[in-house]
Structure formats: C-alpha cells, structure tokens
C-alpha cells in the first residue's frame, strides 16, 4: 500500500513484530526452533522464559476482582429443520490438508493428490444404498439456497439422515447451500445446520465432463499457470 520497507528475510519481520508485542517478545526464532514452538505469553527473550502452558494459573483472571466470569446463552434451535422436500441435515467441516479457499493449497501437488475437486459429501452407507449411489459417484446436493455437484463418500462417521461437506471446494462449494440466517448477537450465519436433498445423477459421464470443464474454467479465470507447462 505504498509504505516504504525493506526486509532481508522473514526473521527480520518477525523480530520487528515481537518487539512491538510484549506478550510474545520472548518468542525468538531461536527459541521456537529449540522448543519446537512457544506458547504465548512469552515476555522474556532468555531461555528461562519458555512461554506459558496454562493461562489463569491459580485462578487469577484479568478482571476487577480477579475472578473469571462464566457466561452462558440460552439454547436457540436451528433456523431450518429437515422436512419432506429437504430430508437430510447438512453441516460443513474443515478438510485436513487444504486451507480455506485453497488459493494456495489447491496448487500444492501433493495436497491436491490427497484431495481434489469436486470434494465429497459424506453420508451414512445406509443412505447411500437407499439412494443407489456408491463411493465416488457424482451427485447433486440441493438446498433452498442453491445446488452443487460433488462426490458421494459413504462413511460410518456420519449418522443416517445427516450429511457433511468440507468447505474448501470451488465446484463442491458447500456454502451455496448453507443458511443465511444470522445469529442475533454475533451476526454469524448459521453455516453448520440446514436442510438438503441429495440426488443421484444418472449420466455420470456427463457429470464428470462438467466437473472437468468447470475446474479448467475457474483455474483459467484465476490466472493459474501450470508449472512445467512451458517446459
């Protein structure tokens, strides 16, 4: 944004940040290397200060009377329950090995080999059997907000009547389906529960072709050049 700066390496950037943050001034590169990590607060640069494993030790809190305030909120039911039209619940979780919208991890070969578009919708094997879909089959998942195409993943990790997807995908973009109802206090959308319907796709070849072209289209719009393409 125009501010003139020059750093020779990341350590210089980190050293500047540490010196401005008393709570982790003690987390030097050397200490992090030696200990494998430093739990902050860590105030002192010397090796005597190895960081803080437990906060509020001895029951001391940063409040007027030194006591911790425990608050609770009343239970509020989810805003969209399952019904006949959308009979399965839908939740979103995090993919191990990919981060957020995959703008970086999506271009990491090995991580892409582990998991790639269009992602998976995890379903109980009984529900998969009833629907007539097998692992890897492309399916359409619909909600009142939208729909997407992704692969079926039968797994005992999901109980019958429930589904979940991971939110890293562009084609299997699960937030096309999630609810926009906001929490009254925090204004966070209700991402973690809504109603959906899973539909079997009879023409798997057509669906596969669709996924390929969509992926190529998105990648070209993002300006991604394949490493080795010009070799």
């Amino acid at each position: 944004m125009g501010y003139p700066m020059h750093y020779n390496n990341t350590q210089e950037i980190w050293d500047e940040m540490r010196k401005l943050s008393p709570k982790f001034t003690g987390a030097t590169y050397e200490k992090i290397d030696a200990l494998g990590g430093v739990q902050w607060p860590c105030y002192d640069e010397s090796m005597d200060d190895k960081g803080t494993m437990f906060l509020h030790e001895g029951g001391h809190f940063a409040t007027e009377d030194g006591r911790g305030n425990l608050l609770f909120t009343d239970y509020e039911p989810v805003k969209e329950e399952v019904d006949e039209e959308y009979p399965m619940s839908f939740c979103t979780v995090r993919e191990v090995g990919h981060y957020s919208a995959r703008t970086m991890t999506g271009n990491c070969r090995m991580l892409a080999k582990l998991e790639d578009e269009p992602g998976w919708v995890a379903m109980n094997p009984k529900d998969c059997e009833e629907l007539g879909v097998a692992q890897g089959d492309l399916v359409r998942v619909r909600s009142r907000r939208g729909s997407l195409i992704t692969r079926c993943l039968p797994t005992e990790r999901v109980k019958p009547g429930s589904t979940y997807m991971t939110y890293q995908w562009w084609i299997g973009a699960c937030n096309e389906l999630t609810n926009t109802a906001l929490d009254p206090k925090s204004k966070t959308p209700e991402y973690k529960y809504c109603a959906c319907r899973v539909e079997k796709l009879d023409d798997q070849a057509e669906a596969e072709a669709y996924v390929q072209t969509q992926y190529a289209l998105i990648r070209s719009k993002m300006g991604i050049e394949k490493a080795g393409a010009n070799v």
Partner: protein
Amino acid sequence: MNRFVKGNPLFCIGCRTCMVACVVAHRGNGIFTTDPESEDFYPRIHVVKTKTKTMTVQCHQCENAPCVKVCPVGALEKGTDSILMHEERCIGCKQCTMVCPFGAIQMKSVADEGTVRVVANKCDLCANTEEGVPACVSHCPTDALTFYEIDSVQNAVDKKNLQTALNAWAVKEGQV
C-alpha cells in the same frame, strides 16, 4: 532379523503425511517442477480410517515373506535386512498383492521407455531415496511410526525379560 517400520495406533491421527512423504521421497524434488497432471500418487504406506479409528498399514518385511515365496520371477527376494523388490524384473502377475496378508503391496503404473508397465509397489525402507531412511517415520507429526532397526526386537525382548525377573525378586523380597 529384518528392519521394519511399524505404526502405533494410539498416536496415529490419520493425517496421511506419511503417504505424501513416501511419494515425494521416492519421486525426488523433480516432482515440484513437472506438470501436476503427469504425476501419479503411489504411496507404499496406507492410512485407513474407520468410524472411530485411524491407522497405518505398511510392509512388515516378513522373515518368511509370502510375497517372496510366490513371486515367479524373483522380483521379490530376501536381502540382508529387508525384503527387496526389483521392479525391473516384475511381470505384474499380482500374486504378491494377493498373498500379502496386510495388503501392503499394491500395483502401480510406471513409464518404461515409451510404454507403461504395471508392477508391484512395495516398501523399500527408503533405500532407493536420497535420505536413505524411512521418510514416513521422519515426517510423521505425532511420531506414530517407528523404524525398528536390527536388534530392536531382541533388545525389547531382553528388556522385558530383565524387568520380569526383577519384578519376581521384588515380590519374593516383600518389596511389592
């Protein structure tokens, strides 16, 4: 005794870093500059996830290896401290894949002078890699994998013998 790698189910978190480490170690750093579409993914160690459990499965470098017994062309043979796999001899008959009780051997496609061959893919304890020591072991973030070298088994047994004997005396001398 052969050296071997073994996983500890208590520490395995199912992250699959071992699978990635295996592929990268055998492929070498050239993997990061080639066309991603051209790269295959054939790890020699596998992570299995069930509803409540995750665990690695890999070659045990068996002392009386069934894979060696059934190989018709000697592509699998007993080495000094491991079971060796000579990919160039493999005809892809798949007998080793079928006979291994762990499913540790799987088949892979390899490019070979303009053609493609399908051969058995088996753990070589990273002998044919730059590092020379099992990459899965060194990369596991929870130390769930251990490389048991020569004498590991005998040492473990000796320790247990000693402890048992000491415990027996402790009981006799009223210390327990």
